[in-house]
Structure formats: structure tokens, C-alpha cells
């Protein structure tokens, strides 16, 4: 398949502090004891997409990510890891590697996507419609959010991620609003509405940040100026809405048709008026509203209109799809990959629905409930209780420790009598006796003092935060 894949793996995302650091960029954050980026890479591999460029924000992070990927995926994928300037937006990251792109279509995937929707299906939909962009949509994750969101007290109901307008066949994207636009009145484009006749507006769908682009269009749009001074910054908030907005008057994409013709790809050609009309007559399937619009009335348009198609691939409700872009999402996804969506973790679970590594040691009267993972070389004392939690490698856990709904990464020392609930504990943290954590995030290397009780806090070593 002539598809190039770009994985935007991010750098050390601010949203995830203190979980990420210079040592652990976002891509390598462990999810179910596997680096986050491995989920996307495995998914691509399953769809036989093996030409992959991974863009990492920041040179140091790129080195780390590159080292891990080359060790894990050697002989499996052709991965090129490229560093891009950090915090300049997804469009800037793509712009930085634009010259690497040569295939006719490009699949752009966010590196924080954890899902089981085959990207190959998105690519196929993209090819089938000869679209300039195809976006994957999934239902807005509400799975675990409801309980945990209410506990964090931020929002009452599942947040709206996007406002999405679809045509009646649910194949074409007529409108998309992201970011702050979502909470405003929806202004749609009259001409698109008129051409399509009917638009289904959905507020329960989320843009999963998995796009198939026509390469020539992508490159043209990336160098385009927005507002005469600034270039597009974000794929999700700028590039995609721009393409959707201009789909019925793609005057901006003048070179596109010529280039695609050179590539011998598709039938978009300058004399497509005749070609298309005959094709429509020959083709039993009903033409899309773009084609009808382009042809004008009775196919005698005074000027041939240039249009392009923006398509969608909507993931079924049975599919899992989430983006790890907040601490809340980190907890949710960790819980899901060992719980409801355990097939994603790639492990085979025991009949008790948990995984205890053969080299892990469990003390007497310690209970490990379902939906748990205990990593290699970890030791647990007596009378411990672990529920719905992930415990990493080489942890030393004392006796009478309770761990519920939490993620405990590698090389962590937990002394006797600690209680950890709904928390994330990063590597090399030390918990002294009877420390209590609830709804906390503990940054790498932190020491939680004996007997301290922490609730809803983000704990990190001071110098660490400065250095990140």
C-alpha cells in the first residue's frame, strides 16, 4: 500500500506533568507496563503499515524514543525517528518533516492513541473516495470518565470534544469544530449545507486524531499562510477545519489536481467534467454531493467548480478508542487496557483476569484481584491487597499495603502499611511507612514521608519540575 505513516509522538507534554520528564517522554510513558507509543506501532503493524516516521518533540526525547523503538521493533518495522521543535503545534511538526514525505497518501497518527480500530480501514475509505483528507471519528470516551470525572470535580457531564457535521450517508465531513469553538453557537457554511441538503450534527463523536491526507494537499496546506502572518499550527484545530471549510471551492488547491494526475492516481483531471459525467452515468452508485455540485445544473456549469472531499471513518461502538492526553486519561486508559479493553495490552491473562509475572514474588495472604498486572521482579510482602492496578518491574512492596485503582511504575519502594488509591506513582519513588495517597500523582524520584496523608495532590521533586 502506497501509504506513509507519520506518528506524532509528542515530547514531554505539559498536560502530563509530573508523569513525564526528560527521562520519560510521553511516548515512553508506561501504559499497562508498555511504552505508550508501542500501542500505535503495533496497531500500524497489524494493518501492514510498516513505513513509519515517528516525530518526537525535542532532540533528547527523540534519542530516547529512537533507542527504544529500534530495540523493540528491529526487523519488524521500518521506523525513522525525527526530532521536531517542541510546542509549536502538530502542523509545525509535520512541516518539519514534510520533505520526508514521498508517498501519494500520508497517514498521520497521534502517538497517544490507544485504540483497536484498524488504520487500514481508514486508509481504504480514504482511497475509495479519493478524498483529500479522511478523519477517524470515535464516540467520545465516557467509559470510566463518569465516576472519576465527578470525583475530580471538573465537569459534570462528559465533555464535548467536537461538533461534527456529517452528510446523510455519514461518509463525508461537512463541518467540524474543535477547541474553544465547541462551546459556542455553531456557525456552519451555507453553501456546503445547500449542496448537501442534509447535515447530521453530532456532539457525541470525537476526532481521534488519525488522519489520512493526500500528500500533495497536505504539503500545500502546511506552507499556506493563515491570516497572512501565521501558518497553520494545529492539524486538528486549523488544518482539518480549513480543508472542510473549503471543500466546495478548493481554489486554494490548484496544483493538487495536476500533481495527482502525474502520480497517475485517481481520475481528478482537468477535463474531468466530461469524464465525470460519463462516469456518473455509468456508475450505478449515486454520486456524492461534491460531484453534483461540481457539475452544476444539468452538468452545464459555466465554470467548472473545483471541489475536494473530506471523508470520515466512524469507528464502531464496539471498538476501543482513546487518546492519552491528560492525567485523567492516563488513569482511565491504564485501567481499560487491563480491564475492559484487555486485548489491547497484548498479554494473555490468567483465569483470574490478572497477570503476575513468573519472576514476581507474592507474600502470604496477599490478594491480587482481577484486572491487575504485577511486573517482572517485583516483590510483595504479606497481607497486601491489589485491585485494578498496574505494578511495574522491580518494585519492593512491604506488608499490609493496599493498592487500588492505581498505576505503580518501576523501581518503586513502598514500605509497610501504605495505602494507595486512584493514584499514579512514577519510577524510583519511595513511600515511607504508612503513607496514604488518594487521587495523587507522584513524580519520579519523590520521597513520600512516613505517615503523611495526601489527597488530590501532585507531588514532584522541585528540581525535577524546573529541569523539565
Amino acid at each position: 500500500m502506497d501509504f506513509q505513516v507519520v506518528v506524532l509522538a509528542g515530547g514531554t507534554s505539559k498536560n502530563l506533568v509530573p508523569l513525564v520528564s526528560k527521562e520519560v517522554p510521553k511516548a515512553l510513558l508506561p501504559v499497562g507496563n508498555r511504552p505508550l507509543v508501542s500501542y500505535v506501532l503495533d496497531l500500524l503493524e497489524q494493518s501492514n503499515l510498516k513505513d513509519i516516521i515517528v516525530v518526537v518533540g525535542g532532540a533528547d526525547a527523540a534519542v530516547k524514543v529512537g533507542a527504544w523503538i529500534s530495540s523493540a521493533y528491529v526487523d519488524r518495522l521500518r521506523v525513522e525517528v525525527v526530532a521536531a521543535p517542541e510546542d509549536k503545534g502538530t502542523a509545525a511538526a509535520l512541516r518539519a518533516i514534510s520533505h520526508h514525505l514521498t508517498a501519494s497518501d500520508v497517514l498521520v497518527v497521534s502517538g497517544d492513541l490507544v485504540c483497536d480500530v484498524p488504520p487500514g480501514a481508514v486508509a481504504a475509505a480514504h482511497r475509495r473516495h479519493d478524498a483529500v483528507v479522511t478523519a477517524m471519528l470515535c464516540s467520545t470516551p465516557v467509559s470510566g470518565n463518569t465516576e472519576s470525572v465527578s470525583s475530580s470535580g471538573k465537569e459534570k457531564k462528559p465533555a464535548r470534544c467536537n461538533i461534527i457535521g456529517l452528510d446523510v450517508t455519514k461518509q463525508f465531513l461537512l463541518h467540524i469544530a474543535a477547541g474553544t469553538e465547541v462551546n459556542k453557537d455553531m456557525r456552519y457554511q451555507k453553501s456546503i449545507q445547500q449542496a448537501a441538503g442534509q447535515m447530521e450534527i453530532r456532539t457525541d463523536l470525537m476526532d481521534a486524531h488519525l488522519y489520512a491526507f493526500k500528500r500533495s494537499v497536505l504539503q500545500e496546506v502546511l506552507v499556506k499562510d493563515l491570516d497572512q502572518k501565521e501558518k497553520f499550527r494545529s492539524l486538528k484545530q486549523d488544518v482539518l477545519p480549513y480543508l472542510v471549510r473549503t471543500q466546495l471551492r478548493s481554489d486554494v488547491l490548484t496544483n493538487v489536481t495536476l500533481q495527482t494526475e502525474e502520480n497517475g492516481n485517481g481520475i481528478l483531471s482537468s477535463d474531468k467534467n466530461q469524464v465525470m459525467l460519463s462516469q456518473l452515468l455509468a456508475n450505478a452508485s449515486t454520486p456524492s454531493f461534491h460531484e453534483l455540485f461540481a457539475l452544476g445544473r444539468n452538468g452545464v456549469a459555466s465554470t467548472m467548480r473545483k471541489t475536494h472531499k473530506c471523508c470520515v471513518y466512524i469507528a464502531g461502538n464496539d471498538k476501543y478508542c482513546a487518546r492519552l492526553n491528560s492525567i485523567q486519561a492516563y488513569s482511565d486508559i491504564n485501567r481499560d487496557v487491563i480491564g475492559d479493553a484487555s486485548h489491547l495490552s497484548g498479554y494473555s491473562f490468567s483465569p483470574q483476569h490478572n497477570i503476575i509475572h513468573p519472576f514476581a514474588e507474592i507474600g502470604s495472604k496477599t490478594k491480587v484481584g482481577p484486572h491487575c498486572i504485577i511486573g517482572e521482579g517485583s516483590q510483595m510482602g504479606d497481607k497486601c491487597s491489589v485491585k485494578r492496578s498496574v505494578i511495574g518491574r522491580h518494585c519492593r512492596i512491604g506488608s499490609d499495603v493496599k493498592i487500588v485503582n492505581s498505576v505503580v511504575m518501576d523501581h518503586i519502594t513502598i514500605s509497610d502499611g501504605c495505602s494507595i488509591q486512584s493514584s499514579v506513582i512514577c519510577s524510583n519513588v519511595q513511600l515511607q511507612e504508612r503513607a496514604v495517597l488518594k487521587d495523587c500523582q507522584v513524580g519520579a524520584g519523590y520521597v513520600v514521608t512516613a505517615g503523611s496523608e495526601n489527597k488530590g495532590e501532585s507531588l514532584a521533586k522541585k528540581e525535577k519540575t524546573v529541569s523539565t
Partner: protein
Amino acid sequence: MVRRTSRAAEDADDLTHVPLQAILLADSFATKFRPITLERPKVLLPLVGIPMIDYSLEWLESAGVEEVFVFCCAHSKQVIQHLAKSQWLKNPDMAVTTIESHNSISAGDAMRVIYERNVIHGDFVLVTGDTVSNMSLAEALQEHKDRRKKDSNAVMTMVVKKSKPSPITHQSRLGTDELFVAINPDTKQLLSYEDNANPIDKSLLSDNSSISLRNNMQDCYIDICAPEVLSLFTDNFDYQHLRRDFLKGLLVDEITDYKIYTHEIHSSYAAKVENFRSYDTISKDIIHRWTYPLVPDVQYFGSSAVKLGRQGVYSASDIGLSSNAQIGPFTLIGKGTSVGSNSKVSNSIIGEGCKIGSNVSIEGSHIWNNVTIEDGCKLKHAILCDGVVMKARAVLEPGVILSFKVVIGKDFVVPAYSKVSLYEQPIFQDSDEELEYADSSNGMAEISSISASTGMPDGELVSRAAEASEVGADGAGYIWSVFEGREEEWRHSVAPISEDKLAELLQAADDVLDVPHVENHQHSEELVAPSIDPENLTDDNIDEFEKEVEATFQRAVQENIKDDNVVLEVNSLRLSYNMAAADCAGALFYSVMKLAVETPHSSISELLHNVTRLIRKWAKLLKYYLSSIDEEIEVILKFEEMCTESTKELSPLFTKVLQFLYEDVDLIQEEAILSWESEKMGADEVDRVFLKQAEPFIQWLKTAQEEDSEEEE
């Protein structure tokens, strides 16, 4: 009549059976069919030979409606006469009762009249007398009733049908403007009803996870209503139009929470004759049998029998066709009509008793009864009312309407889209379409006045018109001019839109698309209206009102508008913002002062000069709003506010200007100043700055007053 009404009342008393009732509005409260409707009400105009109202009644009967109230207003006598003559009033299956009103000028008025009659006792069907439909109401009624059981606020179910507007003209094939409707696809609740692509309110987005936004819908104007609908019209006495006022009013009303639902029909037919274009379209649909069983060859209306032949040609039994006349496809020829040799008729409807000469060409036209068309005439897409005569070789270009008994002279060519009537176009053109041709008495008066002014009976009017010869040397009739502000003629004409026009529109559409589209984040931020919070509503209102007044005033200054007109404008603003006279006075005074401050000045004295000059200039206008002490106090307070807040440079002049207002222009009386003073005495120290400043002046006033009173004594 009286007997009927009493019988209806008896029926209603019978509680065991609630009959299905319907209201049929036999008046469109519009003027789209002028000049024809000067002489005959719209509902009696023949559609493929049958008056429109008969289609509506026939359908209501077949749909199981047991009781119909026909509301007549314009030409009500004619409507009632027709109903009596056509046996509708004696129908055993469906009781037809007429309700007559002469002072209703809108559908809203009609609903209020019907409410007062207290004849509607349950859910009812609301239609107009120009509806052609064959849909079954059972399903829609059932849905409506089920919804009502669950939620008594579901007061209305409106029938819609898919109809994609033309991509070029953006109107439906019925000639109606496009409609943007938002519907909840699961519940079918109507969420918005707009004639343009207005933004969708964010509250709708948060309430509905899925919204179907459609502009491929046709409103059929068939509504199933709960009885509350009638009282809603009475409660909101300003509701006039069924859609513009009532429907939209309910949609935006957040307090009452009434809900409107839609019922989409797919295979059955429903359409309303709204203009000449829809008249033509629906006629063709009838000929093409989309409205079956309401088609000419099915004897529903007691009309003369016609038979359907090949190619959709319907012909009555006793017609005189010349052997070499070509009667083309989809044509109807009525009883007693003769067509001469070598004449061609296609896609047309020809009524009864018409005489059509030889070598005549008729295409896509509607010819009513007893029309004479002499040899060699050519007609294309025209409507010819009863008794029209076309002399030899006359030509009608597309879109011509010839009203009753018009005579077109020999060889005369009537230009496209002309409307010709024996009656002169009323010079008095009410700009408000709703009000125009309001009641029959008015219409009749108009007509009689025309006859009176000519001082001649009808026949002689014709000959007089012939002298006018607007339609040829031996013709009779006036060509009505299209007056300004009207929708362009071609849009609603009976003639199809010409190729030239289409090309022009297409070009225009392309141009619009080519205009760089400015839509961005800032843009949308600007346009988002601030959410209306009831608490700060009044403040916002006052601010906005003041801005409007200021703008009005500035325009008055720039364009030298007379005081009287400014007063009119300000008054209308006052009404629309619901403000008191004092607010007007304050706002106007503010505008004058602001202008003074904005006039370039270098020193305080120059500013004072500006102020006095302008106040003197606009004194008369200000005086208009300063009729009582209250308003005067408001002006002083406003002035004080300006001095402390917006235009501080005025503050040193406070006393001087106050004095000037009192002494020189006599805008403010001493009582106002003194009550202002007493009001301010109790205020904080900060608020009394200007009181202090004006202290000497007030003291002087007081002593002067005392002196005055002493003198009086």
C-alpha cells in the same frame, strides 16, 4: 348557518365521541395572486378546473375529518356561496361550518376569532384552503396523540416533505424560499426553523447529541394542533403569521417549554399553492397523477367527466377538436371547448367553453373557462382567467397573467411577466403585505370606487380601457407595474426560469464562492451574542438604547434631519426597548453633550461655548421629552453621571451648564433642580461633589424663589 353552528355545539356536548376537527383558512392573507384575487378569492381559483378549496375539503373528508370550520375573510360571500352550491354544507360525513370575519388581517387574527367562538374541543388539523394533498392523517395523528400523552407540551405536529431546492436559485420547485430546519433525528422534535443559515444555538448542541440540519425540506403547512394552540394565539396577541410569529415564538420561548414536532411524509403528496410558480407546479402534479385519487378523471367533485387518453391527455366528452389540431402531452381540454385546425396545445390546461382558433400555439399555459383565442395567437406559460379574449395574432410572452375579461388587441405582444387586469392598479400600495387586501369590504370598496370614479358600468369600463389601449388598439386592461420592494418577478412566475437568468445566477453564485471566506476564531467570537442573563438584561438594554439614540442623533446632525423626524425615530426606539420618556430625555441629552465634547475645542470656555450652542440648537428636541419634572431630574442626574464618569472634562462646567439650562433655554425648572438637591442631600460625600459645586447657584435659586413668593404676597 345558524342551524349548523348549533348542531356543532350539540356534537361537542356529546362527550362519548370527540370528532376530529379541522380549521381551514379560506384566506391566504397575502397578495401573491393579485390582480386575480381582486375579483375572486384565492381558494376559489381553479386548479386543473376545480377550485382549490374543493381539493382541501375533499382531502380532509377522505382523511377522516368529521368537522371543518372554514374561516372566510376576503370575498367571504363568494366562498360561502361556493360551499353552498357545491353541496359541501350538506355533506353527511363531514360537517362544514363557515366562520366569517371581516376585520381579520392575518392568520393570527383568524385563530383568535376561532378561539372566541369556542368550537374546538380537541386536537385539530390546521390547513389553508389552498392545500392539495392525499396523505393519510392517521399516522401523524397517532404520533401526535402518543406524544401528547407523554408530554402535554407537545402542542403541534407539522407535516414536512423532502424537497431539494435548486442549487442555483435556492428555491424549491414550488417557488418557495429555502428553509433551514433543525430536527432531533430521534424524537423528531423541531429545534429551529430559519430561512437562512443562521448559527445553531449552543444550548441546542448541549441538549441534543445529534441534530439533523436540513434545507431539503418543504413545509406542507399542514399542522396537527392541540387546542392550546388557539389560546396561545390569544395570549400572544401580536402573533400574526403561523410560521414567522407563532412557530418561531414557541421555539425561542424558554419559559413555556412548548414543543413542536415534525412528521415527514415520503410517498404521499402535500403542497400548498403559495404563488404562481406553485400553482403551475401543482397543476402539473395533478395532471401527472401524483395526487391520486385527486385527479381530473376521478369523479370526486361532481364536475363534468373527463377521460384520460394517451400521453396524459385528458378530454371531456363533447369537445370540438379540428382533425389536424395537435393536442400534445399532459393536457386537459374541458367541456364544450373547440380547437381550430393546425393549432398546437401542449402541457396546458384548457377549461370549459373555450374557443381556440386555428394556427394557435399554446404551451404550458392555464386557460380557465369561456376564453376566446383567435387565430394565430401564441401563448407560452401564461394564466388566462375566465372570459379573456385574445384577438388575432396576439402574443403572450412567458409569465403573463391575464385577469378576468381582459381583451388583448390584435397583433399585440404582451411583455413577459405582465399582469393585466381590467382594474387599475390601486395607487395606494400598502407596504405591509399582511395588511393589504385585508377584508372583503375593503376590497369591494376599492373596486366600487374604481367603477364609481369611471362613472360607468362594467361594459363601458372595458371600452374606456380600450381607449387607454395599454394592451393593443382593440384591447381592454391595464398592465400592472411591478412596484418596488417586491421579490423579483421571475422567482414566483408561472413561467420556468429562463436559461439566461440561470446562467446569470450561476455566475453570481460562483462569484460569491470566490469571495475569500473570512471565517475565523476572532470573527466568530465577535459575533457570538452575549448570553442573555435576565438580571443584567435591563442594564444592557439601557446601554443599547442609549447607543441607538446616540446613533440616531448623530445621523440627524450629519444629514440635517428635522426635529420631528428625530422624535419619531426616538419614539420608535423607545417602544422597541420599552423605555420611559425620562430615558429618552436622558439619552438625548447625553448625545447632545457628547457631540459638544467631541467637537474640537482648545479651552474650557470654548467647550462651554460648544455646549451652549448645541443645546440652543437642539433645545426644541430636548424640550419635547422634558414634559415633567421627572424627566428634568433625569437629565440632571445624567449630566452628573457624565461629569463623574465618561466625560470628565465637563465637570468644571457643571454649574454653568445647569444655569444655562435653567435661565437661557428654559429646559429645566427650578423645581427640578431643587428636588435633585434634596435627593442628593442624603448621598455619600463622594456623590455630592457637584452638589457642592452648584451650591451657590442653588442658594441663589432659593432666595430668588423666596423673593418671588414675597412679591406675590
